[in-house]
């Protein structure tokens, strides 16, 4: 099956803890993204990687750091979560070959208590 996969589906944690989310795509794409969708359903880009190189880094708190081992994987680490980090984190991928049409994973819902 070719798609974008994310783990975990849900995560509940306490303020100050570290969390890590995984994303893998089997579409053969060379560009991957992390988006944040808040409680009002507003979607905003956080990071973008092309062939393991960071190409987009929006203004996000420094506790967020993306990690890419190869062009099929892009993880997101949050060093010390805050209550405002509660959101759905969506991973997507695309490629120049497909004119950057983006395909999304199912999302990881983070709840910070």
């Amino acid at each position: 099956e070719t798609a974008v996969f994310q783990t975990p589906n849900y995560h509940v944690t306490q303020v100050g803890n570290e969390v890590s989310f995984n994303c893998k795509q089997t579409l053969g794409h060379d560009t991957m993204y992390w988006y944040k969708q808040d409680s009002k359903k507003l979607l905003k880009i956080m990071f973008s990687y092309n062939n393991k190189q960071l190409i987009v880094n929006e203004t996000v708190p420094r506790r967020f750091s993306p990690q890419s081992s190869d062009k099929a994987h892009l993880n997101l680490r949050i060093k010390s979560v805050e209550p405002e980090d509660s959101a759905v984190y969506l991973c997507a991928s695309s490629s120049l070959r497909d004119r950057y049409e983006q395909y999304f994973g199912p999302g990881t819902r983070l709840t910070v208590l």
Partner: protein
Amino acid sequence: GQQVQQSPASLVLQEGENAELQCNFSTSLNSMQWFYQRPGGSLVSLFYNPSGTKHSGRLTSTTVIKERRSSLHISSSQTTDSGTYLCALEPAYNTNTGKLTFGDGTVLTVKP
């Protein structure tokens, strides 16, 4: 101001009625996509349509670059069409990053 504006913010239809969702943008673009999101669900790409008209079943997307607008038409709506419809574009000044800017979405409710 906001680069991508969607209207209406919400829409309630009776099953069988048609819907017209609008997306207006204030910048020239490299790409335009329409997505569908069910509550608690993932984003499903409906159309990649940076210009012109595309059809898929009961859905039609039309993007008119000169008028800086894109529309999504749903004909003969069904209750299963209920959810949030999002348009997103990559501004032309983003040289090959694929970075999408999203509208706020239209929440569609189709009643039986």
